């Protein structure tokens, strides 16, 4: 079975590598879209460094919203283990992605064994645009809704913060008195949020609210990423360059600019002339349009539509062993291959590309 194509023609992997290298070497402005495991991300960033390119995650917009909270403001964060063991008051803010629901349900079935050791109380702060959480998720938690009529989530958070300081507001929130009582009784309230459903401005308001609570007591937040692999890529990028994705290299030095190095924008506005699409996610396809030539490294058994070169790659945890971020443990973990296959890893292919590039440059990976 073929793993490499030039256009729609199956070719040997060596031929595909050589042709891809010609495109990379002649490119004026190569850009990388990444969605892969830690080793694949590291390799791709190292290749972008050599080539003077720019890289972004395929979910760049979503990730940029989450990262903006850290780069523009900061916050108080805790770990899932601390929440499970210490928190008797959990406040869900906005929508929590479905793949985190199992984690929340395990907390609903347990009591904190440190701190105040009371049974857990749940609240849900929602705006008019918030889809109600899966009823299956909310039922065992008996989460008390906190919200206002026709208020957006950002407005709800602003009103909540003002009312917790006993300041006047134009609108009121449902169950605000119950919420205040629960906050007073709890030793370690934790606000659980994801960047997927709250704009950065709302996230900043939430963190300021938590800072207010910490003037008199103790409170924190648990950040559950909208996508674990994307957040893993952000942490890997920080480790490699000091910056999150949407970083470019000018004179081999990394520079972070979420507007300048937005790869989708660069393609749309025809600033990039070569797009290297690296995705091991099932069913994900490269964006259509733009005039940039496309090299696709994806988990596929057919050539990618519109790609000059396609190389099939395996996914960590399925085709080969790897390392991936897990929000459940709050750090990186080993993932074992569930169905080892002949598909090469992303890092393997990118190393071959780097080795075949003309001139001797150190591949820092």
């Amino acid at each position, binding site marked *: 079975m073929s793993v490499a194509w030039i256009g729609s023609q199956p070719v040997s992997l060596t031929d595909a590598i050589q042709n891809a290298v010609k495109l990379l070497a002649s490119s*004026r402005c190569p850009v990388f879209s990444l969605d892969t495991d830690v080793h694949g991300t590291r390799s791709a960033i190292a290749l972008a460094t050599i080539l003077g390119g720019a890289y972004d995650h395929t979910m760049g917009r979503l990730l940029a919203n989450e990262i903006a909270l850290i780069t523009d403001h900061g916050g108080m964060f805790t770990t899932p283990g601390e929440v499970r063991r210490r928190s008797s008051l959990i406040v869900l803010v906005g929508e929590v992605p479905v793949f985190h629901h199992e984690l929340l349900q395990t907390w609903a079935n347990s009591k904190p064994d440190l701190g105040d050791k009371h049974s857990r109380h749940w609240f849900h702060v929602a705006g008019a645009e918030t889809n109600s959480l899966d009823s299956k998720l909310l039922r065992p938690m008996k989460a008390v809704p906190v919200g206002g009529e026709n208020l957006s989530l950002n407005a709800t958070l*602003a*009103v909540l913060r003002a009312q917790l300081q006993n*300041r*006047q507001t134009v609108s009121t929130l449902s169950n605000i008195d119950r919420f205040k009582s629960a906050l007073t009784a709890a030793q370690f309230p934790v606000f659980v949020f994801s960047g997927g459903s709250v704009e950065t*401005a709302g996230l900043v*308001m939430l963190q300021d609210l938590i800072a207010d609570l910490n003037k008199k007591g103790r409170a924190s937040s648990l950040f559950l990423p909208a996508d674990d692999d994307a957040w893993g890529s952000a942490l890997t990028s920080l480790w490699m360059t000091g910056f999150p994705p949407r970083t*470019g290299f000018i004179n081999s030095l990394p520079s972070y600019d979420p507007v*300048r190095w937005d790869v989708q924008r660069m393609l749309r506005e025809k600033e990039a002339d070569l797009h290297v699409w690296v995705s091991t996610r099932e069913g994900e396809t490269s964006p259509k349009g733009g005039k940039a030539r496309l090299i696709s490294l994806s988990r596929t058994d057919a050539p990618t539509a519109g790609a000059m070169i396609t190389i099939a790659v395996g996914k960590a945890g399925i085709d080969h062993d790897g390392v991936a971020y897990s929000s459940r443990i709050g750090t990186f973990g080993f993932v074992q291959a569930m169905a080892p296959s002949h598909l090469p890893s992303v890092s393997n292919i990118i190393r071959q590309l780097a080795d075949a590039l003309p001139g001797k440059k150190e591949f820092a990976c």
Partner: protein
Amino acid sequence: MKALTFTLIDQPDERLDLSGLTPVALAGLSEVQVSRLRIGTSRNPASVGDVFKVAGKDVNNIVFEGGSARFDKVGTGLNSGSMRIIGDVGDQAGRRISGGSLYIEGSAGDHTGSCMAGGRLEIKGNAGNYLGGPLAGEMTGMEGGILIVRGKAGDYTGDRLRRGVIAALKGCGDYAGYRMIAGTIVVCGRTGAMPGYLMKRGSLLFDRRPENPSPTFMPCGEPDIAFSSLFDRFLMDENIVNKPLLGPKPGKYGGDNAVSGKGEILFRQRDRLRSD
């Protein structure tokens, strides 16, 4: 002496970093040295001579004939002299200006006037998001000077504004005055959602009642204050507007009560506007 003029030969293939083409950076350089300055940001970066025809010698008076949305960081760090761009510019135009004047005859991108501390920046067309705001990781936005947008400004106008005046004369997007610390933002025309969100202090001055204020801003009636007349006169003296913006008894909202409640939104009463 004739103004130092950069005439655009053709639209650039790559984004250009024009932060090095300011009076201070160009002082003492010969025409050849100027032509060799690198301004491209791709792997094969263009130099000044590849993109512009250079003429004139007065570095304190710089003119760009022709613009592009790919002209980034125009006028960065300008502290004296004047710069004029006959066309559009890209992102971060006028970043960290502390003196002099920068006039853009077209539209500007995001982060225009980012962290400016003095001088005057005027845009004839529209401006992008984060007008005057800080870049990622920076703690304060604009700290002084006058920033005028004759067209419409984008979202987050005046993010973390600390001092100075921003004027958007054909409306602005959402979250004007977001995280504002102090200073003044003037908006004529429609404002987007939740102006003053997370505002600590400072003044938002509108020519009409805001359509969608944050519920943490409280109506405070129509205070009879001298400030509105004084500021109207300042705006007209500076040729920012040609008629009073607020009038004698503007309406007022106080907020953001989620933060400290020390900021204000002053707006012209519509019935007063009709009777004037």
